[in-house]
């Protein structure tokens, strides 16, 4: 099966611009998660979707971040306007509701650099 796909793989934008990251989960995976790793720090949870519903968005840093999952398929994470501290690697993951014990399948991440 195809894995979790994220694009772009890299993005360099100027402070104040808008960037949209996309994640395509594994087909049939209702659970979709976004995580972020700021340089050298731990990977931190941002939010969790079940289908198109946000179940937990407690990790979203502020209202400059907007995540959507229309139709319960792919998800987008928009940062508007981007700030320098938003730089990092954004990971998406998905999991099947019937297989909670197997962990997630992660994508390879989007490296965002804000200059």
């Amino acid at each position, binding site marked *: 099966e195809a894995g979790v796909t994220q694009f772009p793989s890299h993005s360099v934008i100027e402070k104040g611009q808008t960037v949209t990251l996309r994640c395509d989960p594994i087909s049939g995976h209702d659970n979709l998660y976004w995580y972020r790793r700021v340089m050298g*720090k731990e990977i931190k949870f941002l939010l969790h979707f079940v289908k198109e519903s946000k179940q937990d968005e407690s990790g979203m840093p502020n209202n400059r971040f907007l995540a959507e999952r229309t139709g319960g398929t792919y998800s987008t994470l928009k940062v508007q306007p981007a700030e320098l501290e938003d730089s990092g690697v954004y990971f998406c993951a998905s999991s099947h509701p019937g297989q909670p014990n197997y962990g997630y399948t*992660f994508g390879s991440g989007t490296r965002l650099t804000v200059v």
Partner: protein
Amino acid sequence: AQSVTQPDIHITVSEGASLELRCNYSYGATPYLFWYVQSPGQGLQLLLKYFSGDTLVQGIKGFEAEFKRSQSSFNLRKPSVHWSDAAEYFCAVGAQRISFNKFYFGSGTKLNVKP
């Protein structure tokens, strides 16, 4: 509050030598513990997981980890390291019992392998 500590930021070992990566966690309930690896340009790959039972768990690529409740540790080991093991390793605690809607990750340990 849940947290994961990986005290070693960088480790260098010679090829063929044994390896132990340390992980300590703080979690109020019985932890679900994981080790992930990220090779350059790749996503996070699950190495192994612990839920219950035998405290020594075997994973892929010849890795194993031992859960020690008294020490709140879940250290990763490999008896003989290969050059292809050079990567970054992340320990994680999975919160929730039924569906893992949130992981708490450590800050990672970057492994270098000397020829």
